[in-house]
């Protein structure tokens, strides 16, 4: 009985621990192994050095995918945070109907990215959406055809992704703003410090952990972005809006090139590690003040 009491947590945790060990870390190891083989249609297990990585880095399409990832990821994270923070600050002004507005801004997050992508595909389609509508109002020369411009199409993905995520970032920041000690703010107000200074010098700096969480959430959304691109541009025009995830999918499932897909998956994982490991390090290291 005593043994049971002591070991209940371990017994309860064991199955999920084993499951994660096998189905997450086991499969990562499997993918790593496959990425060093010449697997095509089916996995093969004879090692063949770094051929797949050489092929990957020689492929112009992979270059496009990686460039798009950094361009899309950077813009998506920065713009979503800026818009999210602005919305949060405006909502924080003790306005009426705050609850309703908050819901309206947060709602896009409830939609599937496939829906977002499809809807924006119609809105941005030059023959159906904004361009056609504005031309219909009499501005014959109005042009907004980013969706079909290979150089600009990636920005439409940013646009749709920001639309989807900034409400969520706002919710995070709003919670952060509310958690700042109201005594300090009141003291500052008594001292006659203007509101914008209160935000920039007191509130926002104390919200640093929230910024970090928002950044981590947005960064991993960006790296695994897949459904939005598939629905919005299908990776096109050409392969101008390919991301690593769509590249990996094409190799694994359309082309029967498993080794190549595995190597691209490993690179994606390393990009995630590069972002998440410093975060984990800062979270997990023992705090000196405790």
């Amino acid at each position: 009985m005593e043994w049971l009491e002591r070991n209940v947590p371990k017994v309860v945790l064991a199955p999920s621990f084993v499951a994660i060990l096998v189905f997450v870390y086991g499969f990562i190891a499997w993918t790593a192994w496959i990425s060093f083989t010449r697997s095509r249609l089916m996995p093969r297990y004879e090692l063949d050095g770094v051929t797949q990585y050489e092929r990957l880095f020689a492929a112009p399409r992979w270059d496009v995918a990686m460039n798009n990832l950094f361009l899309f990821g950077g813009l998506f994270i920065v713009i979503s945070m800026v818009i999210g923070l602005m919305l949060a600050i405006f909502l924080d002004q003790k306005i009426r109907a705050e609850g309703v507005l908050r819901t309206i801004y947060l709602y896009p997050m409830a939609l599937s990215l496939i829906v977002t992508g499809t809807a924006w595909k119609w809105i941005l389609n030059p023959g159906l959406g904004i361009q056609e509508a504005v031309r219909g109002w009499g501005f014959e020369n109005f042009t907004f055809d980013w969706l079909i411009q290979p150089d600009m199409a990636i920005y439409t993905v940013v646009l749709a992704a920001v639309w989807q995520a900034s409400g969520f970032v706002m919710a995070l920041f709003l919670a952060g703003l509310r958690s700042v000690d109201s005594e300090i703010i009141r003291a500052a107000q008594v001292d006659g410090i203007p509101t914008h200074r209160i935000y920039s010098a007191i509130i926002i700096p104390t919200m640093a952990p929230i910024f970090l969480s928002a950044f981590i959430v947005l960064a991993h959304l960006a790296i695994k972005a897949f459904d939005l691109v598939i629905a919005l541009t299908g990776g096109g025009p050409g392969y101008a809006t390919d991301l690593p995830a769509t590249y990996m999918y094409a190799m694994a499932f359309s082309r029967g090139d498993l080794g190549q897909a595995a190597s691209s998956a490993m690179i994606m994982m390393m990009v995630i590690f590069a972002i998440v490991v410093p975060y984990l390090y800062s979270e997990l290291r023992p705090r000196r003040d405790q």
Partner: protein
Amino acid sequence: MNMKSVLAASTAVMLAGPALAEPTAEVLHWWTSGGEAKSVAVLQEQFAAEGGTWTDMPVAGGGGDAAMTALRARVLSGNAPTAVQLKGPAIQEWYEEVGLADIGPVAEENGWDDVLPAQIAEHMKCEGQWCAAPVNVHRVNWIWGNKQILDEHGIEMPTTWDEFNAAAEKLQTAGVTPLAHGGQNWQDATIFETVVLGLGGPEFYQQALVDLDPEALTSDTMKSVFDEMRVIRGYVDDNFSGRDWNLATAMVMNGEAAFQIMGDWAKGEFLAAGKEPGVDFVCAPTPGEGFLYNVDSFAFFELEGEDKQQGQALLANLIMGPDFQQTFNLNKGSIPARTDVALDGFDDCATQSNADMTADAEAGSLLPSYAHGMALRGAPAGAITDVVTAHFNSDMSSDDAVQQLSDAVANAM
């Protein structure tokens, strides 16, 4: 159901049980759209009529990508289906990976070698033994035209790419979109391969897109192919990006565009909309000689069990039966793979396709379509498509394009 019939049914099952093993087949395919589902139902009925048990395993979506993923999972878990819709070099690829059943006895008994064009029969063999059965032949290099528009502007169906360009210029000046096109990469690839065939001829096509000869890939002919692709890009409306092929077909149907370059599945769209060949729309092979085929077929995995092996034999037999070949292809819009099937009831485009297939098979210009997975394995085919679609959707020069083409092919090997 009352008690009596339940008893009767179970007695029947018990009586039938110990007799000869019944043929069974579990069939993995991706024919899930209207006309396709109807076509596969024909096979299913015939199979049942011969006393077989058919387990249907349709996997929708993605031009077979999803079905192939399902297949991989099944094979990896050691539970391969009896028959799978596979085509082109993928048949041989699967044969090398896991082995396919030998259906030679059925093929020899029914003289498949005599009724199939040699090139198509070759796709159905793995190391010389029969391992797959073809159900149809789609011709890929078709150009479809809106008859009314063409008549209005006094344009004949083009027989050379120069004529095509001239006709397109004329239409463009008159304010008509010359070419309906959907900007998905396989559609870019479809136009590309017809231009390779048209400008380079069958022999060049064979060297470049089947044998992947580096000299052919970087030749001046290939440069002129990319030049023509750049010209064709100018004939497409601004809004083509990401459009589905059937929407492009609808543009020709509704008079929004004059031509479309697409395989004969486009005909199904015309016919389904109640249009008549020769009256509302016209079909012609794309400029140049030759016939690019896309053959659907079923391959059979090596399996234990008398009932399954019998199922495979029965299925192979039915698939190549003249009866099925006729009904199926009337439904699907393609032509029978057998050359000896009566073409009663087939439309003019199909009849022409069939005559050309026989003629081109003799002339050696019956060639596998690369864009539809008949000429190359997945990796090199995909690498070529990447270059074609990147060129078509940017201002890449033809010199850069051929360089990228040969690099990409080398990288995919």
